[in-house]
C-alpha cells in the first residue's frame, strides 16, 4: 500500500460549503415562492410572471458574468466544460443573483435588473477575486446600484405609477414616523407581518423569513448572533422610540412594525449573515450586527432615505476587516473589552431610538396633504399643510390674484382620512359624525370636532360675511334649521349634509341621517345623493339630479343591510313581482334595479316598500317617504354656500370657492 501523507485530521465532517449554500438556496426559494404567490394573488398576472422570471434572469446573468470572468483562466488551464460548470456551481453566483432579485421590486425594468446584476457580480464580487474574497455583499451592491441608477424604474407593480418612494417605510419616514399613518394608508399589522403589501420582491414576508431564518440557524447555515443582535437591538430601540414618541403600550406594535418593514428581516436573515463579508469571530459578529443596527436606525430616521438596511450592511461590510483586526487573542480573552464594546454599541442603538422617538415622531400625524384643484374660473391651488398637532394651514394660490394663507382650526384625526378617502366616507359611520366642516364667505374655515356619542354638544360656527351663524343642530319644531332657515328636514333625519365636487360646476350633495340613537327605527342611517349644477357667480342652481339613495344599517334588521348587501335583494319583473327560479326561490337582484322604486325612480315605491321592505318594520310608507321628500331636493345656492357642512373633496373645493367668494364684489358683479 502507498502511504498517504495529507495533514491531519483524517476524519472530516461531511458538511460542505456547497451543502450550506444549497440549504441557503432552499431557504431563499421558500421566500421566492411566497413572492410568486403574493404577486399572482395579491397583484396581477403580469406581476406574478415577473416574480417567476426576475430571479431566473438575475441567476442566469450572475452565473454568465462569473463564467466570463473565469473563462480566460479556464482556457489557459485547458479545462473542460464540466470543470467550468463545477467551478460555477461552487462560486455560488446564483445565490447572489437570487438575493438581488428578491431585493428589487417586482416591476423593475428588465435592463435595470440585468445591469444591476452584472454590476453586483462583476464589481461586487469577481473583481475582488470571486467567492470568499469579496469585501461587500454582492447582492447589496447590486441593490444600491439599482437604487442609485434606476430609481425611476423600480416599480412595485406593473401598472403602478408609484415608484420606490411609496413603500411603507417611506410613508412612515415622510409622515413623522407616526403609527396612525398606517391605519390611514390602510396597512394592517397582520398584513405587514404576513407580507401582504407591495415592497421589494422578497423583503415583505416577515414571518416566513423569520421562520426560514430560525430553521437555517438551527441547521447552522447561518450564525445566530448577527441576526439576533441586529433584530433584537432594532426591536428594543424601536420600542423605546415608540415610548419616547408617546405611544405607551402601543410601542410594542410600533417596534413590530419597525422591524417588519424596509427589508430589515430579510437583511437580518440573508444579508447580514453572509459569512464572507462579516467578521469571523463571535464577538466580531455581535459588534458587526450592533453597528449595522445603529447605522440602520440613523439612516432610517435621520437620513434622507428611509431604507437604511442596505446602506448599513454595506458600511459595516467595509468595517469588517477593522472589526476582525480589533478582536485579538483567544476568544475567551479580553472579555471585559468585548462586553464593554458591545454594551456601548447597544446603548448607542438604544439612544438613537430614544432620540429618534423624541425628536422625529409626530404622534397623531396623518398626512401632509397636498392636492391641486382646478376650478372653473381659473387655476387655484389649495395646499393644506400640517402645522403641528391637529393644526393645519390652508394656502391658496392662483391666477386670479388670489394668494392667501389661512390657518384653520383643529381637526379631528379622522378628518384627514376623509380628505383622502371621500369615496368611502359613508362606510365609516364614526368618521362622518366626528368631523364636520363649515365654510365662511370670508374664506375663514372653522372646523369643529364633535363626538357622535354626544351630539347635543355639536356646534358648527360658520362665519358668513362676518356674521356668525349657528348651523348645526338648530332644532325647532322637530325641524332642522340651517342658517336661520327652515330646511324642512327633520333634525332626526338629516343632521348632516355633505357636498363633494365631482366635476366642474357640479356638486354631489349627500344628506345623511343618523339613527343610531334610536334603534327602533329600521334605518341606522341613510343617505340620499343628488348632483347639483351650480352657477357660482350668479348663485343659481341650474339643475338637480337624483343619483341614488343608500343606507348603512345596523343589525336591527333595517333596510340598510338589505340595500347595501346586494344579495339581499330580489330580482323583480315588470310588474314588480319577484322573479322566481325553477325551485321557487326568489332570484336575487342588484342595487340598481332596486333603486327604481325610489323617489325619482319609475316604479311604485309604496308597493315595493309594503311588500318587501316593511317586513319587520313598524314604520309606514309615508313616514318612510319623509326621507325622500322631493321638495328638499331643491337646495338653493344659499344653502350650499353657507349652511352646508362639507366634507372631503368638497371641502377642498369649497375652500377655493370661499376665497373666490371673498374676492367677489357683489356690487360690481365680478371679481375684485
Amino acid at each position, binding site marked *: 500500500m502507498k502511504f498517504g501523507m495529507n495533514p*491531519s485530521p483524517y*476524519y*472530516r465532517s461531511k458538511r460542505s460549503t456547497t451543502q450550506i449554500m444549497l440549504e441557503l438556496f432552499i431557504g431563499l426559494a421558500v421566500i421566492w415562492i411566497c413572492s410568486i404567490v403574493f404577486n399572482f394573488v395579491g397583484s396581477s398576472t403580469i406581476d406574478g410572471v415577473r416574480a417567476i422570471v426576475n430571479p431566473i434572469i438575475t441567476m442566469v446573468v450572475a452565473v454568465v458574468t462569473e463564467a466570463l470572468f473565469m473563462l480566460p483562466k479556464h482556457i489557459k488551464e485547458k479545462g473542460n466544460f464540466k470543470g467550468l460548470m463545477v467551478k460555477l456551481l461552487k462560486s455560488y453566483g446564483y445565490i447572489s443573483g437570487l438575493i438581488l432579485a428578491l431585493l428589487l421590486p417586482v416591476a423593475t425594468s428588465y435592463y435595470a435588473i440585468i445591469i444591476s446584476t452584472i454590476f453586483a457580480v462583476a464589481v461586487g464580487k469577481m473583481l475582488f477575486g470571486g467567492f470568499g474574497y469579496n469585501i461587500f455583499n454582492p447582492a447589496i451592491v447590486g441593490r444600491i446600484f439599482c437604487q442609485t441608477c434606476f430609481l425611476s424604474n423600480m416599480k412595485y407593480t406593473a401598472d403602478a405609477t408609484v415608484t420606490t418612494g411609496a413603500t411603507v417605510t417611506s410613508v412612515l419616514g415622510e409622515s413623522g414616523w407616526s403609527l396612525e399613518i398606517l391605519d390611514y394608508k390602510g396597512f394592517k399589522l397582520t398584513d405587514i407581518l404576513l407580507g401582504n403589501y407591495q415592497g421589494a420582491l422578497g423583503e415583505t414576508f416577515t414571518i416566513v423569513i423569520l421562520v426560514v431564518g430560525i430553521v437555517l440557524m438551527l441547521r447552522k447555515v447561518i450564525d445566530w448572533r448577527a441576526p439576533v443582535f441586529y433584530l433584537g437591538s432594532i426591536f428594543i430601540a424601536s420600542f423605546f422610540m415608540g415610548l419616547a414618541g408617546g405611544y405607551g403600550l402601543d410601542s410594542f406594535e410600533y417596534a413590530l412594525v419597525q422591524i417588519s418593514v424596509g427589508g430589515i428581516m430579510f437583511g437580518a436573515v440573508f444579508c447580514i449573515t453572509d459569512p464572507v463579508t462579516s467578521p469571523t469571530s*463571535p464577538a466580531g459578529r455581535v459588534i458587526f450586527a450592533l453597528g449595522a443596527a445603529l447605522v440602520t436606525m440613523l439612516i432610517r430616521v435621520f437620513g434622507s432615505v428611509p431604507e437604511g438596511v442596505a446602506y448599513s450592511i454595506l458600511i459595516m461590510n467595509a468595517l469588517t476587516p477593522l472589526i476582525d483586526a480589533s478582536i485579538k487573542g483567544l476568544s475567551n480573552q479580553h472579555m471585559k473589552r468585548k462586553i464593554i464594546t458591545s454594551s456601548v454599541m447597544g446603548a448607542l442603538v438604544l439612544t438613537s431610538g430614544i432620540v429618534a422617538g423624541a425628536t422625529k415622531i409626530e404622534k397623531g400625524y396623518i398626512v401632509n396633504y397636498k392636492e391641486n384643484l382646478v376650478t372653473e374660473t381659473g387655476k387655484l391651488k389649495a395646499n393644506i399643510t400640517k402645522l403641528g398637532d391637529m393644526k393645519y394651514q390652508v394656502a391658496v394660490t392662483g391666477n386670479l390674484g388670489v394668494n392667501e394663507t389661512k390657518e384653520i382650526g383643529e381637526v379631528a384625526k379622522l378628518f384627514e382620512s376623509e380628505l383622502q378617502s371621500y369615496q368611502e366616507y359613508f362606510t365609516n359611520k364614526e368618521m362622518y359624525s366626528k368631523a364636520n366642516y363649515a365654510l365662511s364667505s370670508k374664506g375663514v374655515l372653522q372646523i369643529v370636532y364633535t363626538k357622535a356619542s354626544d351630539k347635543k354638544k355639536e356646534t358648527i360656527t360658520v362665519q358668513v360675511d362676518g356674521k356668525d351663524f349657528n348651523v348645526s343642530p338648530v332644532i325647532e319644531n322637530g325641524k332642522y334649521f340651517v342658517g336661520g332657515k327652515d330646511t324642512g328636514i327633520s333634525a332626526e333625519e338629516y343632521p348632516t349634509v355633505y357636498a363633494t365636487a365631482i366635476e366642474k360646476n357640479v356638486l354631489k350633495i349627500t344628506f345623511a341621517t343618523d339613527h343610531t340613537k334610536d334603534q327602533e327605527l329600521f334605518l341606522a342611517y341613510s343617505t340620499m345623493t343628488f348632483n347639483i349644477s351650480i352657477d357660482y357667480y350668479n348663485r343659481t342652481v341650474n339643475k338637480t339630479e337624483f343619483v341614488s339613495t343608500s343606507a348603512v344599517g345596523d343589525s336591527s334588521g333595517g333596510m340598510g343591510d338589505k340595500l347595501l348587501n346586494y344579495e339581499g335583494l330580489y330580482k323583480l319583473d315588470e310588474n314588480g313581482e319577484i322573479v322566481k327560479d325553477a325551485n321557487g326561490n326568489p332570484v336575487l337582484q342588484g342595487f340598481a334595479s332596486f333603486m327604481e322604486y325610489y323617489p325619482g325612480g319609475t316604479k311604485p315605491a309604496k308597493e315595493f316598500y309594503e311588500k318587501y321592505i316593511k317586513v319587520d318594520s313598524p314604520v309606514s310608507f309615508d313616514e318612510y317617504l319623509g326621507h325622500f321628500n322631493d321638495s328638499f331636493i331643491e337646495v338653493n345656492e344659499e344653502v350650499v354656500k353657507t349652511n352646508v357642512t362639507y366634507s372631503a373633496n368638497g371641502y377642498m373645493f369649497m375652500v377655493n370657492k370661499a376665497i373666490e367668494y371673498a374676492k367677489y364684489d357683489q356690487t360690481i358683479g365680478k371679481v375684485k
Partner: protein
Amino acid sequence: MSLFKSRGCYHLNGINDTKHLTSEKDVLTLPNEYAAKVYVPIVDPGKGLPITLSAKVGDHVLAGSLIGTRMMFGNAVNVYSPVSGTIVGEENLFHGGLGRPTKHFAIENDFKYECVKVCEPFSVESEPEVIIDAMQKLGCVGLGGAGFPTFIKYKNVSDIDTIVINGVECEPFLTTDYKAMIENAELLLMGTSMMVKAAGASKALICFKKNKVAIKEALLPLLGSKYPNIEIKLVPDVYPMGWERLLVKTATKRKYDKLPSEAHIIINNAQTAIELAKSSKTGFITTHKQITVSGGAVKENANVIVPIGTKVSEIVKFMGGYTKDEGVVLLGGPMCSKGLMNDNVAITTNVNGLTILEKVVREAQPCLRCGACSDHCPANIQPVEVKIAYQAKNIQRMMELSPTSCISCGLCSFICPSHIEVNDFVKKAKMLVTIEQGKIAAQQKAKAAAEAAAKKAAEEQTKPEVVEGGK
C-alpha cells in the same frame, strides 16, 4: 451557547458508527509468530535525544530488564525490555511520536515472556510513597496517548483532592479503553483507589461518555461499599472531551492554567489504572498493550493485545492486510495523529490504536469565513484569523492571536466546510510564533545584558567624576 467564546467542543458525526466496527468484537491476541522481533526506541520520545543505555547489543534480556533511563523534569524514567530474548542489534525505525527515523534496539523474542520483578508487589493498603516509588520503578507512563510518566504527577504533590480517570476516548474508531474498562472493571477500580491513596486524595471520578452504557453496567455492581470514594461521571459525546482541560472543566467545573494539580486534580487514563493494578500483584512491568486496529482500509477490525515493540506491519499482516492501494496509517485515532511514512514502526506503550484509512483527496474551496473553526476551537483560538495572518505573513497579527495555545485536536479542520487544512495553518503559525518569541526573548535578554553592562560602565565612569567634583 456562549456569546463571545467558542463552544469548545463538537459532536463528531458518525463517530459511533466508526466505534461499532470494533466495540462489539472479541479482543484478539497477536500470535507469537508476528512478534518474533520487538523494537524498543533508545531515544527520548519527547526530545529525541539518546537515552542513557544500561544494556548493549548481544545482551540477553528478560521482560523487565533495564535497557536505559531517560530524564524528565529531573527524574529518571526507566526504559525496560518488554519481552525476554536477545538484543540482536540497533535498527533505524520510523518513530511515530517524533515523526522521524530513530534508533531502536531489536530484541529477538524467545516467546518465554520471563519477567523480572522490578518492584515488590503492593496493594491499596501500601503507603503512598511505596506506590509512587513502584510507579517509577515500573516505568508507568500514561497509556492514553501522551505517554507522560505517571509517577511525576504524584511526586511531591500535597493538596490533591480528586483523581480523574479519563475513559472518554473521544477519537473516532478507538475502542481499546472501552473494551479494557469493561473487561477489567475490578482492576480499574483497584488501580484507581491506589492512585487515590498515592495522591492522598479523597475521591476519584471515573469519566466516560454517557452513551457507553456497558462500562457503567460493568462498574456499578462493583462500586458501593468496597470503593466508596469512587464515582462515575458521565460526560457528553463530544470532541475533544478526552482533553484534560475540557474533561476537568466538565467533570469538576474547575479550571486551571497549566497543570491539573493547580485545580487539586490528577488525571490519569483508565488503562494506566488497570495496568497499575495488574503490576501491583506481581511487580512485573507492562509487557502487552491492547490496541484498536480499525479504519476502512484494513481487512479485519478488532482490538488486539500485542507485545509492546511489535511492528505495525506485522500487526496489519495479522489483521489480513491492507484493502486499499493508497491509504493512511495512523498511530492513534484519526483526529490527532499524524500519518506514518511507512509501517516499519514499533508499537510503544502509549499507542492506543492503529487507524488505517483510505486516502481521501479533498479539494479545498475558498474560505467562506463562516467562523465555524473559531466557534468550536476548544483552545479558544481563532483558526481562520490565524490562517489569514499566516497567508499574509503577518507575524505581528499571528502573535496577537496566540496560536501557541493550539492542542492540535484537529477540530477546526474537521469542521471546515470548505475542506481547508486549517489545523495545518495553525500549526505552521504556531511554529513561526514560537521561533519569533524565542527571537524576542533572546533580543530582550541581550538588550538587558547590554543595558546592565552599559549601566555598570556608566557607573564606573561617573564614579571618579563624582569624586573629582567632590574635590
